Structures are given as structure tokens and as C-alpha cells.
């Protein structure tokens, strides 16, 4: 018991200490993957880095009214918050100017940079005056004046700018005369921006702002008042303190309970074998797919048509026969696979069974892809020649052709989803929750606003974004275009939805319970007993504000929690259930839990560790 607790504490210390380094590496990998994926889908800048130009900044107001000013490296947003965007109109004007008036844009940039250096510049001039008055050598104070050379040249050597400078009030003090340089720069910037905005309006330049909520099921646009005509979703909150098991968790707990019963009565090995045999059931679901049923019907129809004497064109007949044969071969392969996994497996090697399932799914995916290609080719051939057939045959063929084209695609999608379930654990652990594919294209419901029409503030209320959960993602994109030309992305930011403060949720688990101290063990007693359990965990207490906002892996991989564990024990192997309550520490999305509890029936203490199991068909998520 002491050893287990010691190992647990060591593991906790190591995990806290190393998670920063490991998290950084994992986050870096995930960001590269996300950036690569986004770069494939969109042109322009994909941000969440320090280097890209920014066109908007964000302040988040959470459900408690607290405001968080987002830094460039923030990647996490609270799912129940309101995001207040401030759009950098100056940056948009510069961007528009770069295309319309490159000369003006260059001047504008120099003047903006000049204004940014105002304080330092005036301090240098003051420093030069003081040094001169103190009698310091000229090598000390002259360079301070020379540093203002570019600014002087920019304002005083341009006739228009000089005129503006001469109109700015100033007195005989040297400092006020230099301050007037910057006041003139500010006036000139305003005039240049007005020129660009005017040109932009004439040339039909527009800006669009949009946001999407991406879940594992779908990607939906989020309404931004003033920027689109989408309807906001009904207000909803993500439950912050979930203290009751969800329906999914209740189903998982039942399966874990059955697993534990088998483990306790027949041994852990038998329990694992039973569980892995169920993984083959994935494939038996094939015969229930609508696509599979449509394929069967199509084969019957094509066969009949190919054998018919009504079809005159030899090439059409051949193509029909080819399609029917391809479907028949494929169907035979599928039927054989279904039959294989419907029969109980007699192998005692669970690993081999899992590997076989994985291989068979891969092979089936490959065969489906080949069938899809073959059917597409047949469709093209038949479509090109069908005009030569009789009206009846044409009607029959045309009825079958759409199904022919559709089935290949649908079946591939169905099968892909089955195969992807196997890979879900690894991909979700490394990359976070799998999200629906999104192309981030603006629809015609997103307004095209000219720069002078643009509000420089926007509000994205996540509570009206739609049904969402932790692990989902919000994407915000701003783009610029010209009349008749599609917009080009300027900046896209992705934020994962996770609670950044305290929250609580439940977790189920399969426990290895050690009720007997090591020195009291006898040879006949099992080292561990097995028990189903659930925990109520408090999370968000181990992360700093910065970690919570910047480290996605902290939320999606580490997710540490501490709380209460409730387990159904049977220490004496009598079949009567005893309630155990204990303290628990959980990590790795509850894959690893450990703690210490008390059997409330007989008062015995016990140490435990536990983890999630892929039991039956429920998948790790």
C-alpha cells in the first residue's frame, strides 16, 4: 500500500515537472499539424503565432464578468465566454494601400514607424540639450541629434509635409519644435489614410469577418452582429460543474462492471479476451449499412440488365457486366468478412485478434476504393453510349446510373468511419478531439463591408454559437477582397474550447484495488481485486493562467484532476457489493487514476490505481 502511494506521488511529481517540457513539444507538434492542415485548406496567414501580422485583437469576458486580454500565443478560450474583438483599421488600410497605392503605403509605414519612436526621439533631444548645457563633449550630445535625421528628412524635405509642419503651433524651445514634427506626422498619416480609404471605396475593396464553431460532428458559422445575417443559435452553456454521470458514462460503467465481475471470478486474462473479441463486432455492422444494402440491390439490377436481350450495344453490355462482376466480387469479400467475425473466436491470443481486425479493415478500405474507381469508369462508359439504346433500356440504365455513381462515394465514407474508430484513441490523444472538416469559406450571408463602413469592434458570443463541448474549436477569420474578386484571407485564429478555471466532471474507471497490505499477504490471496468505479473530479487547479491559455495539451492530454472516488468492492469474493469511498488523483484524460479509499462496510483501507479500458464497442474519447 505504501509502495503504491509512493509510486503514485512520484508519478505525480514527475508529471507536474515534466509536463511543461513535454507539453511544449506536444503543443508544437500539434500546432505544426494544425497549421499544415489549415494552410492546405486556405491561402494567406494562419496565425496563433507571434510572427504573423495581426488584424484584430481579443478580450474575453467570461461568465463571471472577468476580462482576459488575449496574447498572441493564446490558444484556449472558455466555452461560455463572450469574445470582444477590436479590429485594427490602420492595418487594414495599410493592407488595402499596398495593392492600390504602394507609394502611399510606403510613406504611411515610415510615418507610423516614426510615431512609434516619438518618446525615444524626444528623450534623445532632451538628453542632447542637457549634455550641451553641462559642457559635455560634442561626441556625447551630437549623435543624439543625428538620430532624428530620418524623421527630419521625412517631414521637412517633402514640400507638402513641410507645409503641414509649418502650420503646427510651436514655440522657440527646441523640444517643442521636435514635438511638432510628430504632430505633423500624425496629421499626414490621417490624410494618407483618407486617401487610401477613398481609393479603396472607388475600387470596391471590402472586408469580411467570420467565425465558425467546429465540433466532431459539424462546423457551423457563428453570428457576429453587424458582420453577417446568420441567425444566432439558442443560448446554451457548457456545464462547468458536472457532478452526475452522463448517459454514456452510465453505459460504460455497466460494461466495466461486467468486465470486473469476469476478472474477479475468472481472472483478468479471460476478461480481456472477452473484451477484445467484441472489437470484431465493428465489422459485422457492415451488413446493416444502407450503402451495403443499396449495393446488393444494384448488383441484382445490373445483372438482370446485362443478361437482357434488350441491350443492343456491345460496349454497354460489357460495361454493365463489368460493373455487376465488380460488385459481386466485392460483395463476396464483404460477406466472407462478416461471416468470419460473426463466429465466436476460439483464439486465446487477444493481441492477434486485434491485429487481424485492423488488417481486415485496412484491406476492406482498399477494396472499396478500387470498387469505387471501377464503378466510376463503368458509369462514364455507359453514360456515353446509352443514347443508342431503346427507350426502355435507357430508362432502366438511367435509374441505375445515379445509384452507381453515388454508392462508391457513400460506401467509402461509411467504411472510412468504421476504420477511423480504431484509430480514434491515438489521433485524439495526440491531436485532440477530431473535428469536422471545415473549409473556412465565407457564404453570401457574410457582409462585404468597405473600410469606412467597418465597425472597429465585433462581438462573438459563444453562448449563442450552438451546442458545444470542451475540445471543440472556434475559428475566427478576417479577409479582404475587391469588387468582383474573391476575398483573400488576412488572418485566421483557432481557439480550443476548454475551461480555464476551476471546473468539475465525472469519470468512470476500472480499478485495481489492493486491500491487503503486502506483508500480510498469503500465497492464496490474489494481489489485486478488480472494481468498477466512478470519480467526481475537480480540475483546473494545477494550471497557471498562461498554461491554461497556451497549452492545449494540458487540457487534452494531461487534464489532471483531484476528487472523490466511489467504487463497488467485493473484498471477500462473496458476490455482495461493498461501497468504497476514497480520494483520487487522475491524469491523462482519466486514463490513469490512483488513490486511497475506505471500504465503508468493513472499515478496511485500500490503495488503488485504475484506468480506462476499451470494453466492447465503446471507444476511448
Amino acid at each position, binding site marked *: 500500500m505504501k509502495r503504491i502511494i509512493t509510486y503514485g506521488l512520484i508519478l505525480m511529481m514527475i508529471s507536474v515537472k515534466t509536463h511543461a517540457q513535454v507539453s511544449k513539444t506536444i503543443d508544437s507538434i500539434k500546432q505544426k499539424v494544425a497549421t499544415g492542415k489549415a494552410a492546405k485548406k486556405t491561402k494567406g496567414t494562419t496565425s496563433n503565432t507571434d510572427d504573423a501580422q495581426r488584424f484584430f485583437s481579443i478580450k474575453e469576458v467570461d461568465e463571471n464578468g472577468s476580462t482576459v486580454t488575449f496574447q498572441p500565443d493564446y490558444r484556449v478560450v472558455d466555452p461560455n465566454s463572450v469574445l470582444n474583438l477590436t479590429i485594427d483599421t490602420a492595418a487594414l488600410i495599410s493592407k488595402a494601400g499596398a495593392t492600390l497605392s504602394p507609394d502611399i503605403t510606403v510613406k504611411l509605414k515610415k510615418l507610423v514607424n516614426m510615431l512609434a519612436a516619438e518618446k525615444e526621439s524626444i528623450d534623445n533631444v532632451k538628453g542632447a*540639450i542637457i549634455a550641451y548645457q553641462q559642457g559635455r563633449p560634442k561626441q556625447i550630445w551630437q549623435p543624439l541629434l543625428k538620430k532624428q535625421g530620418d524623421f527630419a528628412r521625412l517631414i*521637412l524635405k517633402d514640400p507638402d509635409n513641410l507645409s503641414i509642419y*509649418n502650420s503646427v503651433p510651436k514655440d522657440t524651445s*527646441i523640444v517643442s519644435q521636435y514635438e511638432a514634427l510628430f504632430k505633423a506626422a500624425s496629421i499626414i498619416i490621417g490624410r494618407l489614410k483618407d486617401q487610401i480609404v477613398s481609393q479603396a471605396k472607388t475600387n470596391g475593396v471590402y472586408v469580411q469577418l467570420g467565425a465558425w464553431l467546429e465540433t466532431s460532428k459539424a462546423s457551423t458559422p457563428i453570428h457576429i452582429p453587424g458582420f453577417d445575417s446568420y441567425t444566432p443559435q439558442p443560448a446554451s452553456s457548457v456545464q462547468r460543474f458536472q457532478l452526475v454521470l452522463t448517459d454514456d458514462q452510465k453505459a460504460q460503467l455497466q460494461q466495466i462492471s461486467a468486465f470486473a465481475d469476469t476478472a474477479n471470478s475468472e481472472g483478468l486474462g479471460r476478461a480481456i479476451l472477452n473484451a477484445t473479441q467484441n472489437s470484431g463486432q465493428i465489422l459485422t455492422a457492415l451488413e446493416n449499412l444502407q450503402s451495403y444494402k443499396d449495393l446488393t440491390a444494384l448488383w441484382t439490377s445490373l445483372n438482370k440488365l446485362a443478361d437482357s436481350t434488350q441491350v443492343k450495344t456491345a460496349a454497354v453490355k460489357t460495361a454493365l457486366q463489368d460493373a455487376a462482376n465488380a460488385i459481386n466480387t466485392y460483395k463476396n469479400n464483404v460477406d466472407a468478412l462478416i461471416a468470419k467475425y460473426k463466429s465466436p473466436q476460439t483464439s486465446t491470443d487477444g493481441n492477434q485478434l486485434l491485429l487481424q481486425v485492423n488488417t481486415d479493415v485496412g484491406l476492406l478500405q482498399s477494396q472499396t476504393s478500387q470498387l469505387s474507381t471501377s464503378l466510376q469508369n463503368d458509369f462514364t462508359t455507359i453514360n456515353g453510349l446509352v443514347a443508342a439504346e431503346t427507350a426502355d433500356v435507357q430508362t432502366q440504365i438511367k435509374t441505375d446510373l445515379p445509384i452507381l455513381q453515388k454508392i462508391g462515394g457513400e460506401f467509402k465514407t461509411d467504411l472510412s468511419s468504421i476504420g477511423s474508430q480504431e484509430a480514434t484513441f491515438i489521433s485524439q490523444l495526440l491531436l485532440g478531439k477530431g473535428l469536422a472538416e471545415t473549409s473556412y469559406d465565407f457564404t453570401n450571408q457574410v457582409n462585404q463591408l468597405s473600410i469606412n463602413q467597418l465597425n472597429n469592434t465585433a462581438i462573438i458570443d459563444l453562448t449563442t454559437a450552438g451546442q458545444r463541448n470542451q475540445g471543440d474549436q472556434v475559428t475566427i477569420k478576417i479577409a479582404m477582397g475587391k469588387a468582383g474578386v474573391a476575398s483573400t484571407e488576412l488572418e485566421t485564429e483557432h481557439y480550443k474550447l476548454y475551461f480555464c478555471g476551476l471546473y468539475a466532471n465525472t469519470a468512470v474507471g476500472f480499478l485495481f484495488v489492493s486491500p491487503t497490505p503486502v506483508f500480510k499477504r498469503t500465497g492464496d490471496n490474489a494481489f489485486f481485486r478488480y472494481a468498477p468505479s466512478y470519480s467526481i473530479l475537480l480540475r483546473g487547479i494545477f494550471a497557471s493562467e498562461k498554461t491554461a491559455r497556451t497549452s492545449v495539451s494540458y487540457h487534452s492530454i494531461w487534464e489532471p484532476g483531484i476528487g472523490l472516488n466511489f467504487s463497488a468492492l467485493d473484498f471477500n469474493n462473496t458476490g455482495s457489493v461493498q461501497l468504497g469511498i476514497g480520494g483520487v488523483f487522475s491524469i491523462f484524460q482519466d486514463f490513469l487514476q490512483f488513490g486511497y479509499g475506505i471500504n465503508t462496510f468493513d472499515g478496511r483501507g485500500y490503495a488503488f490505481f485504475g484506468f480506462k479500458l476499451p470494453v466492447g464497442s465503446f471507444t476511448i474519447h
Partner: protein
Amino acid sequence: MPNPIITLNNPATTAAQFDALLAPGDKTFFAVLGNSANHQTLATAAQPDASTWRHVLLMTDPTLLYPKLSLMSTADVTPPVPPMPTWVVIAITFDGRIVDIATDFGTATANIIPFFIEAETL
């Protein structure tokens, strides 16, 4: 307290005095070349801005200086060449370069402060 106007009005010594003023390299000059009432007015108008290292230089007979002026280094400006115009106002840097020239009263009066700034920064 602004510096007093430096007047060079002795033809025999103007060139030497001019060289002596530039030698230390710790002064800039708003130099007015000419001897009319307007030249004097301009020098007087510039004097309040001539503090610290800034100086107003009035050369009432600049004829002897014109060859020297033609040989001085310049920056950001076309050097003066003979025949010199009636009006010549120049901004001279710490190291004796000419960085701006005005050839009429109006322009020179409007650009007193810009000339001083150019002389000390360019």
C-alpha cells in the same frame, strides 16, 4: 537665452572669421548672406530660435565667401553656384556641410525652424 546674431561685415576678415566659426564643429548656423533691410529683418526673426548650439550668422558682404561656399560639401541640396542670387540663406551643419538653401525672403522666413532642425540632424 538665445545666442546673439554673429555679424561678419569686414571684407578683409570675413573668410578667416567664417573658418574660425566652423572649426570647433560644435555649432550650427542659419546663415543669411546679404546686406538689405530684409536680410537684417530675417536675421532678427531667426535669433529667438538660436539657442544652445544654434547661431544666426549675418554676412553683409558675402562676395568673398562665394567661392568657398561653392566648394563646401552639401547634403540633400544642390550646391550654390555663381552667379549667386541676390538672396542666399543656408543651413550649415556642425561639420560645415550645407543641407538647405533658400533664395527668397518668403521661403527663408517660413523655414527658419526647419533650417535649424536640418542643420543639427542631417
